[in-house]
């Protein structure tokens, strides 16, 4: 019998110490008391006025006790179920899920090699790949449906394009409060009514403030709607250090957290217990090219630190990985995507989104989604850590095989090698074999796999009656906005 043992069942990775997290947290509370945030929504201003917050015009300052009271009411667990009714996505501490990002205006056209506007069909295809590829746990639209009849109702069409080809849970963007309401109605139809949707939410509503410290009308509308219906939502600041946040990562994290905390108080005033997920795409403004960087190492570092803060606050976390600034799927893309995938996973963020983004969040690439499937597999394998049970220390086996023996044909190898990561796209063959098979590059193989999945994979179809009901919601929205 051994005592005082500590076994790591997985790898461990943490950027901030608890003392550092406290510094950032208290600084964020200080921001809300000293500086406050601006809220451009009459209903929300009314809610704050009727509370102990101090309102001057659109500016709202919030005493710390309000924040801490609100924090007590937030659920730390949210479970999502896709249209396949599988409760597959458990958003809770240290449980990690990967998914795509959303609304990319352009798509890398696989035939022409040019970028063009994203269409309904592109979103359809991305949804199909996410359904097919095992390492994706949730779907965001990847691209934005730009061929919808009216930009004001594109979100409903986009949801439909996603639903047609993907049975997994989703994170949805919406045009405004009305748009979110329609998406929620559609979700309720799929899950069997409002009550069932509450227990088996199909999606999380993606909502973002505008850094620094601004909350626009549509964002607040969505927040209040989510609070009213207890619809899972995330409020995810997208600050760029040096432009819309301090250039220091600590300063950016302070501001980002105060933006989130303001939303937490607002939802609490509306309806205590709203399932709100903390977020943040925290990165730097590139000072040479003036772009918001998706491949910067600072994004990985700040995101991992933000996840540390979320765990300390006992809030679920929406983080970022698998994305790049590179215009095409090349060496830069692979390097940047791998780095931010790796650290977002090790940090233990609950929902890691933007997997597959290229061109700093403007361009969609189906091939990038396929490449990331392989890289997510590698990252997850690393996260498994090392088992040190007796059978894994393998003392008896080492004795049995002895010096000059071999392990390939032992039962032990036969049993355990299957625990390894099995590459599907990486080539590990010897030079001659590789050459004889056509000297293919990783990108060649990625392209073949993408085409193969698009040609041959079939998503479980949706019930026809349900499809019609969903289309009625969309039709009615189109009529209202015509």
């Amino acid at each position, binding site marked *: 019998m051994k005592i005082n043992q500590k076994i790591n069942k997985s790898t461990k990775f943490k950027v901030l110490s608890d003392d550092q997290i406290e510094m950032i947290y208290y600084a964020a509370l200080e921001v809300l008391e000293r500086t406050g945030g601006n809220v451009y929504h009459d209903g929300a201003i009314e809610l704050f006025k009727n509370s102990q917050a101090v309102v001057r015009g659109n500016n709202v300052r919030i005493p710390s006790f309000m924040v801490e009271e609100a924090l007590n009411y937030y659920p730390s667990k949210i479970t999502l179920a896709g249209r396949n009714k599988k409760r597959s996505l458990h958003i809770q501490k240290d449980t990690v899920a990967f998914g795509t990002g959303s609304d990319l205006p352009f798509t890398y056209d696989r035939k022409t090699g040019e970028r063009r506007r994203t269409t309904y069909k592109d979103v359809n295809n991305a949804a199909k790949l996410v359904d097919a590829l095992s390492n994706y746990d949730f779907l965001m639209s990847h691209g934005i449906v730009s061929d919808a009849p009216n930009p004001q109702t594109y979100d409903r069409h986009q949801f439909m394009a996603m639903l047609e080809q993907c049975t997994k849970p989703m994170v949805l963007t919406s045009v405004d409060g009305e748009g979110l309401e329609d998406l929620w109605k559609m979700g309720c139809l799929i899950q069997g009514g409002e009550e069932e949707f509450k227990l088996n939410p199909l999606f999380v509503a993606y909502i973002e403030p505008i850094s620094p410290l601004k909350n626009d009308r549509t964002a607040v509308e969505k927040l209040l709607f989510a609070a009213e219906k207890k619809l899972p939502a995330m409020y995810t600041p997208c600050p760029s250090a040096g432009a819309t946040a301090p250039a220091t990562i600590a300063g950016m994290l302070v501001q980002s957290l105060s933006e989130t905390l303001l939303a937490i108080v607002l939802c609490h005033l509306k309806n205590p217990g709203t399932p709100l997920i903390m977020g943040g795409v925290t990165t730097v403004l590139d000072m040479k090219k003036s772009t918001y960087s998706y491949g910067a190492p600072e994004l990985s570092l700040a995101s991992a630190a933000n996840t540390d803060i979320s765990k300390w606050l006992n809030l679920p976390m929406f983080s970022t990985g698998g994305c790049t600034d590179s215009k095409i799927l090349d060496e830069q893309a692979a390097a940047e995507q791998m780095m931010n995938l790796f650290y977002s996973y090790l940090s233990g963020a609950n929902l890691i989104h933007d997997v597959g983004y290229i061109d700093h969040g403007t361009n969609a690439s189906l091939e990038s989604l396929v490449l990331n499937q392989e890289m997510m597999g590698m990252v997850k394998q690393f996260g498994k850590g090392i088992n040190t049970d007796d059978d894994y220390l393998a003392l008896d086996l080492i004795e049995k095989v002895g010096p*000059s023996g*071999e392990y*390939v*044909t032992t039962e032990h*190898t*036969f049993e355990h*090698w299957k625990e390894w990561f099995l590459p599907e796209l990486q080539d590990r*063959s*010897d*030079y*001659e*074999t590789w050459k004889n098979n056509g000297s293919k590059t990783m990108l060649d193989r990625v392209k073949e796999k993408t085409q193969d999945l698009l040609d041959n994979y079939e998503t479980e179809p949706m019930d026809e009656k349900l499809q019609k009901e969903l289309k009625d919601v969309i039709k009615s929205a189109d009529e209202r906005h015509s």
Partner: protein
Amino acid sequence: MDLSKITETLISGKSDELKKLVEEAINNDVKPADILNQGLLTGMDAVGQKWKAGEMFMPEVLRCAKAMSSSMDVLRPMLKDDDIGNAGTMIIGTVAGDLHDIGKDLAAMMFEGAGYKVINIGIDQSNENFVNAVKEHKPNLLGMSALLTTTMPRMGEVINSLKEAGIRDQVTVIIGGAPVTEEFADEIGADLYAPNAGTAVEITNEYLQNK
């Protein structure tokens, strides 16, 4: 007797069960050549194809090879020379100065799996030992490997020693190892080169069939 059961059992890699089935077939007076060709080799062909297609993996393939080789221990004494076809005797070893042997051992197991009688003379073998082994066992195949660039040239020396002893033409020489290339094999006068243990058998069988 239905020989497809032997084939299936071999593919599933169940050594003891396979041996029993082969013994049963022998007792039922099934022709040994049929047991080998229709039963066992059909199975190993299927394994080879699955391996090439990436549907089977090294530990599984070697498990089948092991099953094959232990059944061959039972069957071999019953077989006539003609029955065996190309799958004759092989000498395999690692040249002097090199103690690396996993690649060579993997290749040996693959050849055993293909029905060859393999005499593995081990690591760090002198030129003389290779020559003596060929004289003694009269194999139709000689396999050599080296992992180090420093020991690679030894393989050429062994071939020269075989020539000097006047027995070079008795054997087909196949070489391999990480730093070895097709050009190097040509340079030292080897007959065959295999880039990895998994393909050595296929390359050899193809060559011997067309010889």
